[in-house]
């Protein structure tokens, strides 16, 4: 039981760290915002709040589509997802049982963001 509590604390600390890193990332040029969704809660920080629903739906669809595709092609668990449009980019990944999606302008280097978060 104690071990379980300790694991929970570790996970909470990890999420706090991720949130700190996300706050730093949010301040960088070209970052539009992020959605961090856990089993019980979610934190959303987007420059344009009117886009919350659209972006949340896109984030969720990206995870679902990726899971379907990787299962169909036997590629194993999804590590990262990148969706690119003409002007924007979405980087999604699973971190500590949380689904993170970062929205950014196309010229932002998503690999650097990924390294900072993992």
């Amino acid at each position, binding site marked *: 039981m104690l071990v379980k509590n300790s694991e929970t604390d570790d996970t909470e600390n990890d999420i706090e760290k991720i949130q700190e890193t996300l706050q730093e990332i949010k301040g960088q040029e070209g970052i539009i915002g992020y959605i961090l969704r856990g089993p019980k809660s979610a934190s959303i920080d987007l420059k344009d709040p009117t886009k919350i629903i659209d972006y949340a739906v896109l984030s969720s669809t990206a995870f679902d589509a990726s899971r379907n595709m990787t299962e169909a092609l*036997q590629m194993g668990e999804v590590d990262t997802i990148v969706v690119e449009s003409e002007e924007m980019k979405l980087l999604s990944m699973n971190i500590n049982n949380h689904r993170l999606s970062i929205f950014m302008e196309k010229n932002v280097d998503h690999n650097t963001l990924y390294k900072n978060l993992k």
Partner: protein
Amino acid sequence: MDRDPYAIALNSALTEIKKAYPDVKKSFIFTKNGTIITGDQETDEKTMNNILESFENLKEKAKSIGNLQSFHITGKNGKLTLSNIKDMHLLLATSKNADKTQIYSITHVILPTILKTLETFSPTPIQITPPKKLIVDTLTGFFAGDSVQIDAEILMDWTKNNDPRAGVKAALTGDQNTQESINQVHIETFGGNAALCKVKEINDQNLKGKNMIRIPEKLCKSLEINKGDLVKVKPAL
């Protein structure tokens, strides 16, 4: 999947790419309207359709960030890249350690060049005719014959001269690309049965313009379909 010369040419291209780049494990090409043109032999059509369905859903939702250009997944055992190439999408499943430059050269240099080359054979931009979904009506009686009947308007739309694949076929076979009427169609049921058969215009005035295909009873039985069912129909080149 299309088995016309255009699809065969692209299939050969994918096979050669796989030989040249062993990191490429699976690949297939489909149009923006969701028609699978060709794919590697190891990926069955059901898998391709599953992937296509997920991708179409994502493409729709991605409109909130603009038109989708590419989609990349890194999995524990491999990478998946879905790219826009002209009016088509290419899916490449590679090993996890596949070189990014190699993938880039396939999606941005090799396949666009092949598509451009194929386009030079055809007078208009390549656009595969998607199959039409038509409602089945059974043809019974002594004069039912062995031909199916379709609206004249649909047959006109399918006239081979309007299909750029005919240009590719003509170029590959050396035939003259002259206007020909459609005399055969490929019918596919949603249960997976298929048949190639002769086609005529619908002769019953009351059934014209109703998005219908009249199929002889005997053929209906072999295709395991009934009156009112939907079937996918496309012209046979």
